[in-house]
């Protein structure tokens, strides 16, 4: 195991045993939860929209609530600034090294916008945005990785709740602290699994 996502790091932080069961021994049951699918659909619709696809027909597949949320979301200011849009659903893979341990961080940004020299990573949440966004592991990992990808510290991550339109923004702070936090979680994994 050498590659970690935000979700896997969160699980590792919470319980090493659960992490091993799920990601290493594959002893986890996959749940096909219908509720999660609503979020996925809305994410996809926004991404299609940002990429410039015609989503008129697709919108018919959404239920009433979903349609309302989508309409409300797309009326947000950010979607009016298409010239600032760079990419959506962009996957990344970052090679890191700390104390001689090489590991990789992977993930996917919902959308990236650039305003003058500042990059903002957008992350859509169906319901709630993180309670403590500054210390949230997602902010840490995403800001660290984005700084490596765009080679700049002028970066922020912005959470937007699609249901409530509540937002929170975290600006990039300190690369070393970020790496340290991530590393401390990874170190919870016994060495034999760190291949």
């Amino acid at each position, binding site marked *: 195991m050498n590659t970690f996502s935000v979700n896997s790091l969160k699980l590792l932080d919470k319980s090493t045993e659960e992490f091993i069961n799920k990601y290493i021994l594959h*002893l986890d*049951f996959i749940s*096909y939860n219908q509720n999660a699918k609503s979020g996925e659909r809305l994410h996809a619709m926004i991404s299609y929209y940002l990429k410039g696809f015609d989503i008129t027909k697709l919108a018919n*597949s959404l239920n009433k609530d979903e349609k309302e949320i989508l309409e409300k979301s797309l009326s947000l200011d950010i979607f009016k600034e298409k010239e600032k849009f760079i990419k959506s659903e962009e996957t990344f893979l970052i*090679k890191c090294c700390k104390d001689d341990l090489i590991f990789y961080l992977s993930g996917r940004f919902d959308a990236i916008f650039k305003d003058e020299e500042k990059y903002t990573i957008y992350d859509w949440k169906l319901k709630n945005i993180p309670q403590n966004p500054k210390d949230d592991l997602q902010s840490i990992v995403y800001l660290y990785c984005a700084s490596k*990808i765009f080679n700049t510290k002028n970066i922020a991550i912005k959470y937007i709740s699609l249901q409530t339109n509540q937002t929170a923004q975290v600006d990039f702070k300190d690369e070393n602290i970020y790496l340290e936090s991530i590393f401390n979680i990874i170190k919870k994994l016994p060495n034999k699994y760190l291949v």
Partner: protein
Amino acid sequence: MIFYSTINSNKTDILVEKFLQLVKSGANTDEILILVQNGRKKKNFVEKIKKNSPLGNIGNLNVFSFFGLARNFIEKNWVLVENSIRYPNPCVFGHLCGLEASQYIFKNCIKEIEFKGYNSKVNLLHQLLRRYSLIVQNALSDNEIKIRENILHESYCSEVREAIKLYKLKTLEYRAFDYLRQVSIFEYLYKQVKNPYKYVILDDGDEITPAVFEYLKHIKKDVKEFFVAQDPCGSSRLGYLSATHIDFEKFLNEKAIDLRENGIKTQNAKNIFENVKNKTPVSVENIDIKGFVRRDEMIFQTIKQIETLIKNGVKPNEIAVVTPLCDRYLRFCFNKIKQDVFFLSGSEKLNQNPHVGAIIEILKLANTDDCYLSAFILKGILLEILKINGDEAIEISQNYAYKNQEYKTFVKEYLKTIKNPDIEDFLNFLEEIKNASLSEQLYKICTKYTQKDIENQNAILKLNKLAKQIADFEDIFGSDFQKTTLIEQLENTIISENPLSEDEIPDNSIIVASAQKLIDSEICVKHLFLLDCSNSDWIKQDIGMLYNSWVFQKNWNKNEFNSNDNIELTLDRTARILYKLYLCQNEKMYVYSSIYDSLGMENFGAIDKFFTIAQTNNPKKATKITPRDDQKPVLEYKSGKMAVSAVAGSGKTTIMLALIFKLLEGEIIKNLKSENIFVLTFMDSAARNFKERIKQNYPDMVEMPQISTIHGLALRILKENNNYTFLGLDNDFEIIDENKRREIIANATVNAGLDYSKTDLYERAISDFKNDGENLKNIKSPSFKRIFSTYNSEMKENNFLDYDDLLIFALKLLKTNSDVLNYYQNLARVIIEDEAQDSSPVQQELLNLIGGKWGNIIRCGDVNQAITATFSNSDVKGFKKFIKENYNVEMNKSQRCAIKIIDYANKVIDRASNLAPEAFLNIKMQPVEGKNANNTDAITLKLFEKSQDEKDFIIEQIRKIKKEYPEKSIAILTRSNWQIGAFSEFLESKNIKTQKNIDILYNNPVFRTVLAVFNFINDTKNKKNLVKSIEAMLEMPRYKDEREILNYIQDKDFLSQEGSKYSLWWDLKYFLLKSTLTPMELVLEIGDFYYKNTLEFANVSMVYSIVDKIYQTHKSFEQTLLRLNEISNRINKSAKFFSEEKTQEENLVNIMTLHKSKGDEFDFVFIPELSADNLGLKIEDIKLKSNSEFIQTIKQNPKTSETLKQEILEENYRLFYVGVTRAKLKLFLTCARSFKMYNKEKTQEPCEIFTKGELQNEHI
């Protein structure tokens, strides 16, 4: 850039390096497309990039497998697809599903379509999907498909087109696309989208499919540079897997850089490639070639060899085994190795894992209230899932069996009456989840009852697979399907991918894989074992009725397709596979084969014939046989036709073997190969005997002559090179055994309103009707017409063939297809037929056809021993004619029988000349000077008043013989099978041990033990059942001191702890608790427990196969057991058990029928109960059985009763003659004037020999 490379050339490293250079020089990773053959290679490629990249951003990697490319493309551009679909009800995501959902759609599409000229309906869906796969992967246009339909003269092509069109539309409507459908959508999509790639890196360029290559052609104009790794001898996935050989030098207009190393290994691999293509055996130093007789020997030798390697320091992951037959038997044997063994092949059903099977049953219970359950399955749930104490679980499930039997009780109702907190909780839980969706139910059941521990890893993987399938269905069809129907479909889903994902191959295991899997996974080891090399499954030939993988190739450019095309193309692919396999080893390759497969069927030979041991200067020669004068002419054979009429005991087998040895050693016909010698025997045992003796004389011989029964040869003709396709048969045809055939005829008989007991009548009649080639219209019997029609349509519907079809179809093929006929005519340079007097007209026709070119046909037999005509299709007249018309060697000397017995046998011939003149040819047996016994008391003819006197006399004589000649063999030969049991019982009651030589399943020790354990497991409470099982178990030497257990079970419940002083009690309890396994797995466990390291273990796989076949039809342990008990006492024709060479150590008295005794010899022979009814030797004594007359009613030229009687009379004489000539020292012929039946004394006429004439005179 093009790199010619093998798997040993670090090609991936070079391509990774190229990728990094591109990135370093400023290329964006988004612009680089990396294509590899499969998921495992993708993972490998990505890991290498990660490892070699500098710290920081690696970028967005576009590394895809060939199929992954299509999937990713659709995911990224789904909106375009959706907007092009004209059906309403759009989806935000396409359902990129597994095959199960698309099969469900396809199944519904073809329901209404009638496929004219296509016979098999069983696997129609499967075959259509295969055709669709070929169309998609070869990117065939409608026009290209039409051209191929014409080449193959497909009568059903419009129906196929309609079905596929409908399927494509339906998948669009549902937005349900499996991996194949994804490829066809991709083909449409990439033409609509701007190409993002400027660089293409292609690993495995030799395994690319036309569909992917078409894409590369499409984007070529935008691509700045291609980097292609290709092995010019690669393309192992040619054919059905649709790889295509691309000339990349031409495509890119540049020269390839050859990275292939020049060492000996590469050279050897190339030699293998060339030699196989040219059908020339190759000898390579580091290849160890071994041929075994039985498959189990081959497997055990492999295991032994592996254990030695490990002992000598070879690591498990440095060893791999490749076989096309990764069946349960092999798995079972390999799992006994102490090291970890990982099986990288083989398909299995989800419910074959006991835990998964039990969870699926719970899922069913959650969705139905009124269901019954097999007690066997209930026990599985209680033990495996609810973890209820063993004894309690057994008690509960057995009580349920009783309740269910008596009152038809629903299982849930029954469980409600049980006071057990776990069961109560279980029932409440089922109630709670009742209304949830299926996937939620499954999730909840798993979370509650499946422990997340490593032992359950395999079960969890499978349960997740099941969950994914259910989720697919829920996504695609919403609630538009029945929960229970879906569960039933999914539980039978066969997972052909093992492991479920390629990245699960462990690092420290011995790998057992199929050839393709090993090659695809690029697993390189030090020691590579290729097993089952003589099994035709090694050379897969994908030319089914609906999918001809060769003609459906993108680059097919001929106007016709014939058998030679298939042979050549298949050979080419085999050469590529063997080339790649050789490159997968670094030290030694082992090529192991066996004459017989696990079921005792002969292997036809496959890749074994491509490897040879380097010739030594002094090849081993067979032991020389010195012939007698009358035998000499046989060994002086040069060419042409020759008859050998050999009397009983004349050494026919020995001299035929000597002739085969001479042929093999090239002393008769120059350049004759083993494969050019065809030997036909009447019985499988004779074929085995020949093969084993050849093997003993030439231990290094890998390719054996073709030695088989006529059915074995017919099977080869049908199967080899997929010849059956030329008869319009689909490749899923199944040859049914006698049990299955009887079952179908019995159903047809009962459905026609007739009594079940009439089944026997129709079994024979149907066979005769088929062999005579009669037209059903001409048959007068309406019941026969009805029964035959039902039988026939059942056979066709299921694509079954019976043994008669096998011969008829093979003959038809040879007569109608000149390519196939030429193939066998060229091959069969010498044909030797044993027991030619029993040859049927079909056999004789077939033999003449394949011997037509060279004309070297040798037929051996004794017309005076033709004893099968009245109950089989044999025809002695053909052999008589052959003798008359050709050079005939008369081997009439025999050293077997005492001179007096020879005299008596010759008198039988004389006697018959008056009463049954056609019975014998006047070939008299003569003694060999100074060799035969000359005792005066050789013949004893005794007539008794009462049958008890007769039996007492036999007992007295046997005791006397045993006392005087303890080493000598004794046999009792009876007229009928039922007499065997009666005599055996009688002798055993007098403490004389017997051996019943009767081919009933129950006589096989493995079958008997399995049946006993199964019956025990099924019901431990029924005393009668229990005693029977225990008695059968007590026959095993290991329990010989435990007979007391029989008393114990009379008084106590078997399961009570007091039984624990008996080892049998522990052993049976062990199996009782093992009963969560499937019946087939249980057979293997029982077999391993009792028969490990014995010859009988070879028979375990046959019992396994019998159980498997029955279980497939009857689906439950209880029903399977019922059938097993039913067939246990029937004559066994379904399994070809192996048996030890007969030993006389214990000096058992052999009891067998006269028919069965043919070919055997014994010092003392008794032929008792020779009444006129039993063996009529004058015409008045012959009574016709109802079936012989009935059979005549379906013949065009029926025989009169007189003729039939005369034929029976003739055969009775010959049967008697056979019996007489079994005796070496003394022959006892006895009969009684009366016998007891239902406590009444009944009189009977003794047969002819006791009344008058030369057969009686001097001996009384």
